[in-house]
């Protein structure tokens, strides 16, 4: 129980941070926004999945991938294929030349459902595929790159190239993929209409809980030896290798985990936005997702979520008034973050938070003193342990000094 508390929730500060974000996402935003805006937030939260994956991959693993859109897209497309098949039943597609296949296939003179679409008629298969397809893809890319020790800029460029290739492939094969328009006009999930307001609320909450699940998964990974090893690898890869670790297998693993988390985001995107298109797969969205992570703080799982929310809020506000200016602003923001705040908002919070703590402590001490004075007067015969200064001091000492070394270290947890 204690281990769960310190590993998953990250001790007191981690639990408080998580609770604050939960209150914001689960209570404040749903209460203060109408369903149209809340649905937008839901869309931003689906990007936050990718940002959380990037914290593991880039922040801790030191592997910059500029192609996370690949996995977001694969997850999203898997979901979209299922929804599209459900929306293309023979009755509602009876005006087509070939009823019962998705409309874009009919427009492209395809007369039978392609074999790779068949399994997506099954919801369980789709749910498995949303995770397995991107992970398999990540595994192949990862094994090919990391076993050959391709890293750094080269890895970033290659992932970018793969994102571009995948976009071109999707657009080029429009009979099978819906082309540049993507897969649109999605209606129901296993008979449940996803376009209604109540469905949007439910999907928003489901997506939020799933995101928290991913954050906890991230914390579980980072709080153990693997998190430490990732940091060690980022710092001195050779030393890790010569300590008996197969570095490539760890990189492949974290790449696959990031891919799986991104894919969940993609699937939630499709469900909430109601379509999937190649414009969420390619280079631009992949880089945008890196920017969300950088702005929020690439070493902070929670920070990445704030980053995704804030940058996207900014984007929708600014791009409504100055559509041209937004891209420049975002580029400028990225440069500023990289140059001046390498740990993003979370880093700023940690610096600023320490100062707040300093301001708070004298106040806390004064309050404690006053309590000491007040306490005896309220004594009603029963022993008031808290009130006696000696015991208070002893208790303080126990907290500060008697903690064993390894316990003190154990409490250093990723935010």
């Amino acid at each position, binding site marked *: 129980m204690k281990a769960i508390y310190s590993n998953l929730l990250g001790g007191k500060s981690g639990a408080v941070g998580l609770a604050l974000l939960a209150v914001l996402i689960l209570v404040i935003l749903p209460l203060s926004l109408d369903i149209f805006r809340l649905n937008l937030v839901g869309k931003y939260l689906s990007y936050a999945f990718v940002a959380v994956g990037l914290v593991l991959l880039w922040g801790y693993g030191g592997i910059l991938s500029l192609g996370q859109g690949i996995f977001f897209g694969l997850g999203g497309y898997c979901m979209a294929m299922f929804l599209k098949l459900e929306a293309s039943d023979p009755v509602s597609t009876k005006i087509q030349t070939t009823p019962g296949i998705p409309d874009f296939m009919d427009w492209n003179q395809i007369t039978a459902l392609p074999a790779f679409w068949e399994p997506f008629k099954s919801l369980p298969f789709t749910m498995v595929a949303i995770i397995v397809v991107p992970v398999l893809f990540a595994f192949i890319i990862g094994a090919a790159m990391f076993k050959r020790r391709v890293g750094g800029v080269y890895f970033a460029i290659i992932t970018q190239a793969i994102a571009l290739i995948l976009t071109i492939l999707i657009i080029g094969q429009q009979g099978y993929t819906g082309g540049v328009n993507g897969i649109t006009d999605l209606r129901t999930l296993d008979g449940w209409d996803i376009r209604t307001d109540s469905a949007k609320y439910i999907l928003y909450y489901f997506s939020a809980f799933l995101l928290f699940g991913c954050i906890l998964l991230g914390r579980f990974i980072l709080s153990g030896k*693997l998190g430490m090893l990732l940091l060690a690898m980022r710092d001195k890869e050779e030393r*890790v290798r*010569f*300590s008996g670790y197969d570095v490539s297998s760890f990189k492949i693993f974290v790449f696959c985990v990031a891919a799986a988390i991104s894919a969940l985001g993609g699937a939630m995107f499709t469900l909430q936005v109601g379509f999937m298109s190649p414009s969420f797969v390619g280079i631009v969205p992949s880089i945008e997702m890196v920017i969300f992570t950088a702005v929020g703080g690439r070493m902070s799982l929670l920070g990445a979520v704030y980053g995704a929310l804030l940058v996207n809020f900014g984007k929708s506000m600014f791009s409504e008034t100055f559509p041209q200016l937004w891209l420049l602003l975002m580029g400028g923001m990225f440069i500023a973050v990289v140059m001046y705040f390498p740990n993003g908002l979370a880093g700023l919070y940690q610096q600023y938070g320490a100062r707040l703590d300093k301001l708070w402590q004298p106040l806390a001490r004064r309050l404690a003193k006053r309590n000491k004075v007040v306490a005896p007067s309220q004594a009603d015969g029963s022993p008031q342990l808290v009130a006696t200064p000696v015991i208070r001091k002893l208790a303080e000492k126990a907290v500060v000094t008697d903690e064993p*070394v390894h316990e003190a270290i154990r409490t250093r947890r990723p935010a």
Partner: protein
Amino acid sequence: MNAVNPSVKKDFILSVEDLTVSFDGFKAVDSLNLYVDKDELRVVIGPNGAGKTTLLDLICGKTKATTGTIQFKDKELTKLSEHEIVRAGVGRKFQTPSIYENLTVFQNLEVSFPRGRGVFGCLSFRRTPDVIERIHQVAEEIQLEEHLEMDAALLSHGQKQWLEIGMLLMQEPELLMLDEPVAGMSVKEREQTAALLNRICKGRSEIVIEHDMEFVKSIAHKVTVLHQGKILAEGSMAHVQADERVIEVYLGH
């Protein structure tokens, strides 16, 4: 020299035979033979560019040999990858202190603990009492017990060198290879390091590359002098120091 009786070979913990590595035609190590006994502390000396570091790189798998064999116990190292060589029992310390600056001293040692080395082993790794005990034991050996909680980046240069030696000790290697372990250390630190190396030599063999002759004298069981990728002389310190060719190419300067 090349034809070694196989029955003799078994006694060595490490036998390097006919080892050559060629970089674009330049032979950094040239048909070299080297045998290290159990519990032996061997020092390799030689002028810059003699191939000392390359020799260690070849043994630990960082560089692949062009020809030749490296037999460690009964394993052929030239066919193994770096992490497999480490798991076979060979530890390597690099020339510049190579530690994880953004982890604490404790964590640096913990990462080096030889358990949970696979991805899933790593996920299920727990900081059990035996891990903690071993870390304290090693920390005491390398005189860093007081600094376990400190970020490794804040250690002095000498302490970083010791920490890296400690990280190797965590792995309990049977062969320890150290590349200039006292470079940049004060006189006192050098003495302490010499004592440390002599202490940890019990139950394991060491190969040390060093330039400081005083330090070499205080630790070496046997000295090998390398020159242009070949062995120039080998034997006790006194023997090597008396060798005219060694004086000419190395000690005389």
